[in-house]
């Protein structure tokens, strides 16, 4: 089994898939598609952890993979879909940078990450690739948060950043102790629920979930 995985470089494909879903986030306009892309990203992440668990042979990684799948792959997307349905918005309004340009910028971000992280990394092999990809995902998540106007897409950008951070930590240390992971996961879940409730309330108060309207809340 292990040789089969290595021969077909499954890990490489999955990590490139994670990167692709992060970049593709820039290209979609409909909110439900954004949630679907995030779901795909989380599923790819959990399968990557499971395969690494298979190769390395540490049992607690299986738990991490299952927890990621449950929390980020099933619960959070369910909740986000409910919020999107409640807000009754389907499209994101035109973001600050149009889609083609933000795709190009995320491509350049990936190039910058690869070029700068070439030397001086003390891990090697598959970990280096995964580390570069995870930092690229973090930056792209931050970029999505900067250029989108709706609250939901900002939440999804934040979730991408968290996925990237998790992946980065994972590639360096093969996972933190299980208690910390579970705690972080629980925090994320609570955070998303609270943000979702806020988004619905903002929509009710301002009759639009466009965050530009929040600028009137000045001192």
């Amino acid at each position: 089994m292990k040789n089969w995985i290595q021969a077909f470089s499954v890990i490489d494909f999955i990590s490139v898939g994670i990167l692709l879903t992060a970049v593709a986030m820039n290209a979609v306009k409909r909110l439900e598609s954004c949630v679907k892309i995030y779901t795909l990203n989380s599923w790819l992440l959990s399968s990557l952890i499971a395969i690494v668990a298979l190769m390395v042979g540490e049992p607690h990684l299986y738990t991490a993979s299952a927890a990621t799948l449950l929390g980020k792959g099933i619960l959070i997307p369910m909740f986000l879909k409910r919020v999107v349905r409640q807000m009754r918005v389907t499209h994101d309004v035109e973001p600050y940078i149009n889609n083609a340009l933000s795709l190009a910028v995320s491509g350049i971000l990936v190039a910058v990450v690869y070029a700068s992280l070439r030397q001086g990394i003390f891990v090697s092999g598959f970990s280096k690739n995964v580390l570069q990809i995870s930092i690229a995902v973090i930056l792209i998540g931050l970029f999505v948060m900067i250029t989108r106007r709706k609250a939901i897409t900002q939440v999804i950008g934040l979730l991408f950043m968290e996925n990237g951070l998790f992946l980065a930590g994972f590639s360096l240390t093969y996972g933190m102790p299980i208690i910390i992971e579970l705690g972080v996961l629980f925090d994320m879940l609570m955070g998303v629920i609270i943000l979702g409730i806020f988004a619905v309330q903002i929509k009710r108060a301002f009759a639009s979930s466009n965050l530009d309207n929040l600028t009137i809340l000045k001192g």
Partner: protein
Amino acid sequence: MYPEKFLSIGVLCFLLGSVVSLLPLQRIRTYSFILSATGALNFIVFGLFLSFGLPLTLPPFPISSVFELLFSGDGISGFFVIIISLVAFSVSLFSIGYTREMKHRGLMGFFFNGFILSMYAVVTSGNIITFLISWETMSLVSYFLVTLDRSEESAKAGLVYAVMTHIGTAFIIAAFLVLYRYTGHMDFAGIKASSMQLPPGIRSAVFLLFLAGFGTKAGIIPLHTWLPRAHPAAPSNISSLMSGVMIKTGIYGMVRMHMDLLGQGPEWWGIVLIVIGAISSILGVLYALMEHDIKRLLAYHSVENIGIILLGMGASMMFMSHGLYSLAAIALTAGLYHTLNHAVFKGLLFLGAGSVMHGTHTKNMEDMGGLIKPMPYTGFFFLVGSVSICALPPFNGFVSEWLTFQSLLLGFESPSVISKIISPLGGAALALTGALAASCFVKAFGISFLGMPRSHHAENVKESSPSMLVGMAFLALLCLLFGLFPGMVIGVISPAVFSLTGVPGMSPGTTVVSISETASSLSPAGILIAIGVMAVATVAFLFSVGGRGKTRYGDSWDCGMPSLTPRMQYTATAFTKPIRMIFKRIYLPKRELNVSYLLKPFFVKSITYSGEITPFFERYLYEPATRVIHGIAGKVRLLQSGSLHLYLGYILVTLIVLLIFGS
């Protein structure tokens, strides 16, 4: 056979040509151009001698106690002499017919010969003073040529040209001053020998100064704004010379100073050139697409091709900085080959545009149409030029762009990550400009020559005179030959490449170019033969299946409407509308649409549509800079109040200050 003999005959021909042109006898004036053509032929031979490895140094000619004029030529000079001569020869032939009815013919001939001579002097200079004197002469004479017809717009164009050229020359002089101060030599050979001892910061500063100075002459973005003004204002044979050859002296300067004198540099020099080349090529052709004045379109294309040349040169410098000399030789061959090709096909295109303008008396493409029927030869030669500039096989542009692609691909071999990412992106940029250029020339050729005449300018047009056609035919033939026999051209370029990189460069067969490092090869002659054989087979096949076949002539498909007028054709502005919309973040176009109604909103009385594109560096870079300079100049003007007492006061203060500091 001594090369000096050809050199002296050539120089004599040109001098005689300029003098003859000033004589008051009308018939003799034609001979000035014939003399210049003969001079150009002599210089071709001279150039061939130089490039086949016979470096020549004339004895220095002192002009004062400190300065002396020194002319010396080697492989690089020889190559550029050949470029100048080929274009000068055809343009001289063209000018015989073109200037027959011009005013100021005498002055034209005089300046024409002087211009070509000064360009020869630039590329064969051996020391700083000679170079600067020839450079200034070239700029001055071309200024007079641009403003030859004394109209207001030529005067404005000439002013912009003169200012930009002198800014560039200021940079060049500054760089030379720095070089002299650190090496103590005036002659190029001495500077080259001691250039390695310059501290690296100084070398980079000199690199940047030369880049700015020669870049202004070559026309890189954003220093190119004089090009689309000056080239259209000049008469067409002069535009051909300026765009075909004078710009190349900027490239000569870069090759000579950066690669020869300064030698090897850090990697970022090459990367900077590649990036500037990519940006210039894309922006140049984007702005060319939006023009409907033929000559402005061609002028912007010169910017694009200079960008392509810089891509090759930048790749070469990048390879040299890593010590990959054989790859550097390939890239440099690509850049120099494209220099030659661009001179030939851009010269041809400007001559074609001149011929068209001569016949139709308009330069607006929107007024032309259907010219291929009354002017078949001009149309054919313009088509050859268009196909060459779009790098389509089997003409010459294809070979040089292929070589540039290969050298950018080889950029992946260099060890640093930045070059691994930038080189394929440079290749993608090159592919983009190739597609944009193809679109632009479909528009330029299609709207001007095909379809129906769009205005009375384009009806009742006659073909140009035979001398004009011969000039164009020569360049068109060269386009084909340089495409079919690339080995010949690479053989002429090799000595220059050898002297700069130390590697003999590629040694191709006569009709095949092959790169051993990548096992790729190219043979445009083979492609042409294949196409020819296939065409014969196709005709045979068609006749066998379909018989002789009948052909009927009728009207174009008009959807059942009774008459198609020429106004219903596509216009040049309409042709490029999709591209204008796709790239609207770069163009920032302004458009105004005014509709006036008879009975609102049912019957439209008239619609006025006006659109305008201002290149964004003019709006954001040049206009603020000009305003600042005007402001400063206004303040400085206060010093010149015109009062005599104030001036005397200035003299007194200066004397006192000198006394204090002198003691």
